[in-house]
């Protein structure tokens, strides 16, 4: 219809396996950089995980400097940032003890009350809670990895589980690397994004794996690389289609969903792109490490 379906590859016959080494090196390079960024630059942890105070206001004058000049002398570690437009400003304060911080919100409100049209939200996260949230987030991600590995092991052979988790780890590290590079606020929603990326990445790998499993039964004598190529090409149009529709939805969320949800949408966009890439260039080549024949032949 309209000739547009040509952009989605049908009956393609690309030789992915021939290119795999280039992409594996590219991925290793990118992952090393990501790990490097994560260890030395770190994530820009928001108050959910670092503790502290956040106040979002809309100002009467759109003058961020005016607010800064009032607040800076009063607090050691205050940062102000425009949020979406010049009228909306986010004020972040570092953590003191619990009692102090609770009063901090009041103090900030009193100081800028006359310059502010509306206090849109205020958040305070105490030190006990922030470390708990971080710990729970890490727990959720680790359990997700283990549970997914286990499920794939149950449904496929364990080698597939390994391959899928390698691809998944690749996607998560890369996404975190990008978040670190661009200093994007890392909040509770980011943990949700990471876990969803896990789900999406696995989803993509599983579709290819499913086809590999099917083809392993169908073409009993075929060379493994050739079989992988066929399987990837078989599923390529689906992989591209689903990524595109998901990206369409995510871009809609990114541009229209409002300022608060934007970091989440951004992380997801990165994750979906890298997840699509890895399901082809990481998840499948990893399987070459293992011998599926003849012992796994049915």
């Amino acid at each position, binding site marked *: 219809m309209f000739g547009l379906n040509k952009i989605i590859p049908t009956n393609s016959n690309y030789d992915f396996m021939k290119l795999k080494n280039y992409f594996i090196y590219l991925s290793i390079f990118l992952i090393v950089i990501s790990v490097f960024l994560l260890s030395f630059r770190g994530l820009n942890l928001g108050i959910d995980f670092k503790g502290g105070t956040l106040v979002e206001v809309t100002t009467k004058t759109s003058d961020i400097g005016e607010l800064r000049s009032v607040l800076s002398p009063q607090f050691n570690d205050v940062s102000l940032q425009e949020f979406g437009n010049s009228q909306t400003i986010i004020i972040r304060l570092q953590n003191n003890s619990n009692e102090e911080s609770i009063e901090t919100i009041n103090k900030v409100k009193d100081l800028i009350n006359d310059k502010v049209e509306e206090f849109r939200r205020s958040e305070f996260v105490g030190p006990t809670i922030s470390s708990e949230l971080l710990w729970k987030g890490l727990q959720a991600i680790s359990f997700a990895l283990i549970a997914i590995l286990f499920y794939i092991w149950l449904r496929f052979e364990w080698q597939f589980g390994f391959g899928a988790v390698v691809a998944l780890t690749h996607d998560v590290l890369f996404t975190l690397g990008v978040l670190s590079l661009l200093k994007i606020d890392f909040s509770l929603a980011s943990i949700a994004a990471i876990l969803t990326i896990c789900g999406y990445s696995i989803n993509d790998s599983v579709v290819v794996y499913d086809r590999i499993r099917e083809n392993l039964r169908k073409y009993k004598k075929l060379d493994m690389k050739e079989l992988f190529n066929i399987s990837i090409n078989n599923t390529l149009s*689906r992989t591209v289609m689903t990524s595109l529709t998901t990206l369409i939805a995510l871009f809609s969320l990114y541009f229209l969903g409002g300022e608060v949800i934007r970091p989440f949408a951004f992380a997801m966009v990165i994750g979906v792109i890298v997840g699509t890439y890895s399901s082809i260039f990481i998840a499948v080549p990893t399987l070459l490490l293992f011998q599926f024949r003849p012992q796994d032949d049915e």
Partner: protein
Amino acid sequence: MKNYPLWKSLIVFLVIFSGIIFSIPSILYQEDTENWFLENKINLGLDLQGGSYLLLEVQSDVLFKEELENISDSIRLISRNFQINLTDINIQDDQISFRFMNSLKLEDIRKEFMKNYNNVNIVINNNILKVIINDNFKKSIRESALKQSLEIVRKRIDESGTKEPLIQRSGKNRILLQLPGVKDPERIKELLGKTAKLTFHMVDDEDQTSLHSNKAPFGKLIVSDFYDSTTKYLVEKKSRVGGENLIDAKGSFDPQQGHAVSFRFDTTGAQKFGKATSENVGKRFAVILDGVVITAPVINSAITGGSGIITGNFTSQEAADLAVLLRAGALPAPLEIIEERSVGASLGSDSIDAGKIASIIGMIFVCIFMILIYGIFGLLASISLIINLFIIIALLGIIGATLTLPGIAGIVLTIGIAVDANVLIFERIKEEFSKKTKTLSAIKNGFDKAMSTILDANITTLIASLLLFVFGSGPIKGFSITLSLGIFASMFSAIMFTNFLVYLWFSFSKKKEINL
């Protein structure tokens, strides 16, 4: 429609029909109603409707310390009776150690002490006796403190006039508070920030030496004044009567004294108060609130009516708040606010609007894209996607789930991912066509072969989503709910509904070939 079994058609119709019907309350009605049908509407989370979320921690450490103080008093009394000199007392976290002049009668002291206490461990080492609160005791202290605090917090919040508050325990020693519509929780925080422990003590104005040396003798206590912390009072440690005997308190105004709180005791309280005042005419009694003296008037005559007023330099709001606190009763231990999130109503409604627009625009583009790529099949998938959205909304309403901002993100994401199952099926059908399979069997094979992939792919996403539900807090749980429901709904709509539409279309168009 001979190719599609009747029972399946019926299920499809039933689900779609209820999906559309039950999404009506959430889509069309904003107001709360009592109607059984309209009640099935989506609850908005605090981040969407505006309101405050507070997490409070009961400071049970204070109670352990209080308990240790009691133990200390009891041991001091016993050792005095046995005429053994205590040289040192040392309190640490959950234990207290007493150093005696000698180790002669420590066993006797222990026996005597154990008559009243059985939840402690006692260790005797030479001339040191150590009392340790055991874990069971701690647990029961913590548990009862949490229960009492919950009750008091509920009373105070009710008194403050907040509508539909949600107050529940969270973990071992925390209380979670959701206050819809409360934009600025200042007053609530103030109400919860005081333990409001009110006690009446007799003041000892004779023993000035103790007061000046700042060292209270046994059974006495030095307390400072609320308004002027340099003013100290020496009072009896044991209170004559306390806030637990109050039955009413009100803010009042007295032309001479200004704003005040008038109170009334129950019968026991009235008796105690009457006795204390009649025995001590001419002396002073101190009204102590949370460890400081608010006022210490001289008793002019016995007060037997069981009512009185507390004066101080109150504003009318302070007097009213104090009355609320006294009516609700004292917290067993201080509460610390460890997390607070407040969202104004305008940010909430902005978020809802943005979420709606993002969902609708996202959906339109996904549909256009699908139609461009798959033609008539794309159109069928788009219809299926719209139905999918209705089902999600209906499910959210029926299970009474709370929709949060991340929850909206979950819905938008679902719109993108939901077509995946359709794409898997269409691609399979395409493959079957390229093998020159007959149209109908190509469709059947396509659906059948895609099934196991669809299941595997969706179950892995569900795993991630469920873990988010288990470990996520508040708003994030909302995301995992919409995502999980979205996955279920999309599996239904792709496997059952699109399938149905495809067969329906074929039986009408009677085409032999299809351009996919």
